């Protein structure tokens, strides 16, 4: 057999080898794409898209308030302090020298018919039924991962009936293994952009049981 004929005879084996390498490369790329896609639906990435950091322990130096029965733990930064709230709930705020709310956090055990499914509608309806003359939904997200549970969050802004104060908030209904509760993070709409990161960190550090 001549060299030329031997080269031709050996060609399919080389082609097969090259094709195998190509298939493996494609498989690796596809696996990588699928892995990236899977992580994008894990809960933390949608939360980031909503403006919330991934769930994680509150920074060192933050204070903590535990709901009655240990249902949840609200972490709040040192610039805030506990303020009065409903029995069984916890609220922290930073107030201006004139008593205006600059930052506000609240955690309250589930009290009514709120659920992961109906939370955005429930919250906006409750706002206008209770405290606000108008409320406007900005965004909603479900499947948010919390430390110990899963939540549905709504971002909205509203105007209070008293004083016509304009607030923006992120309010989340969070279902833990044994309890459900609500965390609210709010600030005057005019300063929301500058404080939403801090409030988002408090939401990310919310622990439920």
């Amino acid at each position, binding site marked *: 057999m001549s060299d030329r004929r031997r080269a031709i005879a050996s060609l399919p084996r080389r082609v097969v080898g*090259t094709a195998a390498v190509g298939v493996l490369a494609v498989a690796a790329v596809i696996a990588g794409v699928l892995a990236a896609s899977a992580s994008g639906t894990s809960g933390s*990435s949608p939360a980031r898209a*909503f403006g919330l950091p991934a769930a994680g322990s509150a920074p060192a130096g933050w204070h903590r308030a535990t709901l009655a029965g240990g249902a949840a733990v609200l972490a709040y930064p040192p610039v805030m302090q506990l303020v009065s709230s409903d029995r069984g*709930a916890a609220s922290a705020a930073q107030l201006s020298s004139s008593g205006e709310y600059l930052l506000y956090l609240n955690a309250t055990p589930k009290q009514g018919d709120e659920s992961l499914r109906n939370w955005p509608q429930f919250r906006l309806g409750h706002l206008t039924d209770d405290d606000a003359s*108008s409320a*406007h939904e900005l965004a909603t997200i479900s499947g948010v991962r919390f430390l110990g549970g899963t939540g549905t969050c709504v971002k909205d802004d509203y105007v209070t009936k*008293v004083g016509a104060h304009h607030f923006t908030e992120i*309010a989340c209904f969070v279902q833990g293994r044994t309890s459900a509760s609500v965390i609210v993070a709010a600030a005057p709409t005019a300063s929301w952009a500058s404080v939403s990161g801090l409030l988002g960190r408090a939401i990310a550090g919310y622990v439920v049981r």
Partner: protein
Amino acid sequence: MSHTLTRSLAGLALLAALAAGCSSSSSPAKPSTPPSHSVTAPAHNSIPQNNGGDHDGDNNGGPSDGDGNL
């Protein structure tokens, strides 16, 4: 000839990888919804304002808390 075939296979592999990437990224989870609606206050109020009801800050012009009833 073998070089031509090899290049063709590499090209096909690249196209397959790109197609896989595009199909994966074309349907991401939609994390948020655009503004959908506004709600205005109903005719009745469940909690009296101006320091009424449970005397929360949210009944006095402060931010609303997370209660489901009051």
